[in-house]
């Protein structure tokens, strides 16, 4: 049923550190308001925050879409940006292309993508160099 899904789209801007994290806070609030299980809320919160920060640090801008159905929470992040050259490498824990500036802000531990994957039941990432990256994750809800 088409009505059985809630959708919210966020625009995230690259380098906008002052507002970084707002989308993931809003996502968390929506999921709680919908009565999603606290464990699922937390996994989504961690994954969406990492994804949002990846956009803020590396991309120009992105559309982050949250979709909630009775069976799953889905997050799709489509960004315009440099893309990822070697996804397998980027998925390795500890691998990071963070600049010294990002590291100074406490990021760049190379745990972003691995952390997103760890918290997701479905994880799909596609990237085109100098175009952008599309990340799709889904977390199942017990019916």
């Amino acid at each position, binding site marked *: 049923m088409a*009505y*059985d*899904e*809630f959708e*919210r789209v966020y625009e995230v801007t690259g380098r906008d550190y002052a507002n970084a*994290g707002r989308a*993931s*806070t809003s996502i*968390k609030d*929506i999921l*709680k*308001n*919908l*009565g*999603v299980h*606290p*464990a699922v*809320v*937390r996994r989504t*919160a*961690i994954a*969406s*925050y*990492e994804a949002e920060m990846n956009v803020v640090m590396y991309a120009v801008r992105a559309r982050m879409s949250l979709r*909630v*159905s*009775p069976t799953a929470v889905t997050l799709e992040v489509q960004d315009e940006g440099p893309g990822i050259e070697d996804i397998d490498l980027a998925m390795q824990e500890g691998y990071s292309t963070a600049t010294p500036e990002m590291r100074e802000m*406490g990021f760049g531990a190379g745990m972003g993508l691995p*952390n997103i994957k760890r918290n997701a039941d479905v994880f799909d990432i596609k990237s085109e160099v100098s175009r952008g990256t599309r990340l799709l994750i889904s977390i199942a*809800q017990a019916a």
Partner: protein
Amino acid sequence: MNPQTSCHHPLRFDADKCDGCMACMRACPTAAVRVRKEKAWMLADRCIDCGECIRVCPGRAVVPLTDQMADLSRFSCKVAIPSPTLYAQFDPDVSPGEVFAALKLCGFDDVEGPSRACDMVAAATEIFLSEYRGQYPLISSFCPTVVRLVQVKYPALVEQVLPVVAPREVSARDAKARKTAETGLPEERIGTVYITPCPAKMVAILEHPGMERSYLDAAVSISDLFRPLVTAITKVRGGGSTATTAETSSGVNWAFLGAVPRSLRAADSLSVAGLSNVIRILDDVEKGRLRGYRFIECHACGEGCVGGCLTVENPYVARSKTIRLTQKLPAASPELRSEVERRWRNGEFFMDAAFSARPLRPLDENISRAIAKMTQKEAFLAELPGIDCGACGAPSCHAFAEDVVQGEADRHACVFSLQRALAAQVEELASLVQGTRRSAGGEDQ
């Protein structure tokens, strides 16, 4: 399970005094107040007992439900357990010994100073942290409002709430044991009474989250005791010397934020005070952002307990006075550490029950219906002006939209919605009138 069934709140809205000014509604950090028919009322499951409404009400219509001295007559022996913030309410020259003597003049049989328990709990926290292997950061549990906030708004974080007993409870348990031995009275005849800077401690006594029971029997507010204490202090000071106490600088330091991080001397701990700041920090914890910190000390009130809504002195002045007092007090005895270690092995500082999550009621228990309501809510919210004027009796357009979707408010309670509906009706009437005139044969000209 209804989250409201075992929900106590330490305050009451007095409808006779309330003139519906909405100050409390605007100040409430969890949107738990509504104003209907010019009276404020509380959504019990949303309230986290922070006391902001008490602080801002110009008509004193929000009444804190702490105990009065007369309520304590059921005890044969009454032991006062002052919050460390009590000292900072008086002139900086007043010593803890004089405060103890004044408390006795006000009707207490004995006083258990707070420092010893604070020092022991700081040491117990250090031991716990050194043995802990779970998720970081741990969140302090000493402020009952913070505990309630986690239970209600951050249910996934309840496992990260520090399971170390609060100093006031350690004081109460030790005082009960000491007085039972001294007087031979049964434990229930000995009343342990917290002298409290906030009403939230009442809830901690009634609901004792994380503990099988509370060792405190009652809580009397600092603001209620202030005037009798000032009178008594004057008498005490006129009467010559008073006994010295075992108060310590590190113990009295618990009056304002940062006591535990200060005693841990650890760079990987932080302290945060004021609910909006605490909420931002807990949001970050929930997003996995602050994993590099081991311990976060959280206080609902600005500056920590000195900012409690039932204190008298300005929190910044109180903090300054506390620092001045601590400079005159000795440090904690180094022997205390071995006592804490021994008692820690007996499990004495460890909470004996689990913290339960009590998440806010969602839009609907059924997720499909919740999704449908969320869609309705968003659609209705888009029609609202978004200026959070409060005239509808809800603190924000967002809260109002939710109330309407839940059938708890009428959409025309919004003056803008009403205006639009009226305008539409007027237009309809006008066209009706015009139609009638036309069919009556153009009488106007």
